């Protein structure tokens, strides 16, 4: 096991905490109290104000003995919550920004919440979710003891560019004393850090059903980082997630120190293997995404020298927070609501792949425009060609109802993916499809919407479909 670098008491956590920092903490606390009294949100505001008073507060505020930062493109919120829950279960006093901002201001606000009015830290450990792009504004000053990175896949083209850029940002900001917990099934994540960093890896064992040929629009690790020759995939899951080797030079994916086996169909158990020792676990959520998150938590607990048996018990007790996902049978039809975050091709591809995995004859209502991105500068629709709409060309999908401002772009993208244009129905209204979609001869209806239109479109479409399906059986 890699040794965790333990911070020296009284070094980073004490002497530099001067009057200015204390004043910043007080002012930050007052700001937080004022917001709560006013019933306002804005979890980052106390941090922003405190940083205005003391710009180096992140390095001078009293912190718990162990500071863990969780980052990555997908799964960082859930992993943060699971890890905070796990440490809480182990009796630790945990400070975490689970309900707050994951930018620098929010992280500072969380740390302020964890210190007393005299400036003393009240918690044992901080588990802080961090936006990847904030790394340069957070990591050099915070110098966490552990950084967990779940994965680095394509994200917003406008903000995140490409995963290699994000990996560079993270590596540029890392302290050599930070121990890294990295996903070995993600070649880009696994490249983070340098020889100075203690690095441990986690992964999820292949089931044997995975492909060995990558497909789709976004495979960001296709060539060997050493010799540029094409990589051979031992198994491939999605995007660049899987395990590789290079026949030319011998390069290969890192071997995971912590790994989770496929589920045993007879017992419903998985093996959690850490450094060749194994314990059987039953997980509350068997989705691949959750298994990766649990593996990250287990690897982190191992780094904190928690015993394997205890880790096994703790991960069995973890329940992922409710997802933005609903799946119910109404009038004999499966009604599925999926938050499908536009702008992020990878997330959209996962949602489309899920539709394909559901059996039966299906229809899809699609309203994933991201026109609100204009309010944050400029909307850029290139992301649709970074998403695998090809999943929707499957003959089991009899019709796709597309609504919204970008319906013509969406229709063109669907047709380019091989969807028969005769199966594409366009409506200016994002909710109109719910009024007209035929309910006979359909096994499943999918309601796909984004974050910004979750209420205006997602709720309305779900309600209309539910009402129509209930009327059908009454």
């Amino acid at each position, binding site marked *: 096991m890699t040794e965790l670098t333990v911070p020296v008491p009284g070094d980073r956590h004490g002497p530099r905490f001067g009057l200015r920092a204390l004043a910043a903490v007080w002012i930050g606390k007052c700001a937080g109290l004022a917001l709560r009294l006013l019933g306002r949100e804005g979890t980052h505001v106390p941090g922003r104000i405190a940083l205005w008073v003391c710009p180096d507060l992140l390095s001078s505020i009293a912190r718990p003995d162990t500071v863990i930062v969780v980052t990555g493109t997908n799964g960082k919120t859930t992993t943060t919550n699971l890890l905070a829950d796990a440490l809480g279960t182990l009796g630790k006093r945990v400070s975490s920004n689970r309900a707050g901002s994951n930018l620098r201001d929010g992280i500072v606000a969380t740390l302020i919440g964890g210190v007393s009015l005299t400036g003393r830290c009240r918690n044992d450990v901080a588990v802080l979710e961090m936006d990847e792009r904030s790394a340069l504004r957070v990591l050099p000053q915070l110098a966490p003891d552990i950084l967990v990175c779940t994965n680095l896949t394509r994200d917003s083209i406008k903000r995140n560019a490409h995963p290699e850029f994000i990996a560079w940002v993270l590596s540029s900001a890392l302290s050599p004393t930070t121990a890294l917990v990295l996903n070995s099934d993600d070649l880009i994540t696994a490249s983070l850090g340098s020889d100075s960093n203690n690095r441990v890896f986690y992964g999820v064992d292949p089931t044997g059903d995975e492909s060995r040929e990558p497909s789709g629009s976004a495979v960001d690790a296709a060539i060997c980082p050493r010799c540029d020759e094409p990589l051979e995939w031992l198994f491939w899951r999605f995007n660049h997630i899987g395990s590789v080797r290079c026949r030319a030079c011998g390069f290969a994916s890192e071997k995971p120190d912590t790994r989770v086996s496929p589920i045993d169909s007879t017992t419903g158990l998985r093996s959690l293997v850490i450094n060749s020792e194994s314990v059987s676990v039953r997980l509350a959520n068997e989705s691949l995404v959750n298994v990766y998150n649990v593996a990250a938590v287990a690897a982190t607990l191992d780094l904190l020298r928690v015993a394997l048996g205890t880790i096994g018990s703790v991960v069995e007790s973890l329940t992922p927070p409710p997802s933005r996902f609903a799946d119910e049978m109404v009038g004999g039809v499966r009604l599925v609501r999926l938050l499908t975050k536009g702008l992020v091709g990878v997330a959209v591809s996962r949602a489309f792949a899920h539709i394909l995995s559901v059996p039966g004859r299906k229809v899809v209502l699609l309203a994933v425009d991201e026109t609100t991105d204009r309010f944050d500068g400029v909307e850029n629709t*290139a992301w649709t*060609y970074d998403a695998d709409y090809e999943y929707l060309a499957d003959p089991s999908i009899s019709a796709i109802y597309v609504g919204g401002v970008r319906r013509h*772009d969406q229709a*063109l993208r669907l047709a380019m993916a091989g969807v028969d244009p005769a199966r594409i129905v366009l409506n200016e209204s994002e909710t109109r499809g719910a009024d007209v979609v035929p309910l006979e001869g359909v096994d499943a209806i999918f309601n796909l919407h984004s974050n910004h239109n979750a209420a205006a479109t997602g709720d309305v479409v779900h309600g209309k479909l539910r009402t129509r399906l209930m009327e059908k059986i009454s």
Partner: protein
Amino acid sequence: MTLTIEMLFPEIANLYGDNANIDFLSRCLPKASIVRTGLNETPAFASGKVDLVYLGPLTERGQLRAIKRLIPHRDRINQLIESGTHFLFTHNAMEILGSRITNAEMDYDEAGVGIFDFSTEVGMFERYTGKVMGAFEGVSQPIVGYKSQFSMVSSSPEIPGFMTTTRGIGRNPTTHVEGVRRHNFIGTSLIGPVLLMNPHLAQWLLSSLVLSPTPEIALRDMAVAAYDARLREFHDDRTWSSFERVSS
């Protein structure tokens, strides 16, 4: 006659969905041969006849890899451009054919392939995103598209551009001249992908490739409907931000 389209280094030049440009051409030209040349392979254009050479968006390190692979073919590329072979380089692919690429944050200053006399400065913390609308001499309808990039190209105004912007910035925020054009070489920093977003440009390119004034445009009605909707939006002043303009 079978047309040959060569797609360079698709294993690394595949960002931002731009390779849909080739998917679209492939649908318009179902008999065309699409050659996908890997990074460690010799380009087909080096010794054979290719009708269109395409390179899509790369990471910053990918740009350096591509430069290394194409420098040995500099004379051949020049020869093909001068003889009228079609090239389409989108987003930052065009930059590798310039004289230099400088990236202070990533600490490099590298010579480009040297086909064009322009240089590129990459600013890893200065990503520009904006819309573009402008005129291309080959078609009467405006070209529309998006930029989302770390880099800006500097060159003398004498180097002809792909288009002249009427809204949005060109090669950099001080010029309306966008991209590069020499004979049938088109380099543009637009992403989108540009041919699907501009079916009239696709028609011009296809006409030029197949020597027909009325080439078959796949999904034409759908592409034109999307284009028309975007053009209406781009004609609306309210959709433009202050940073999407050329500074004097």
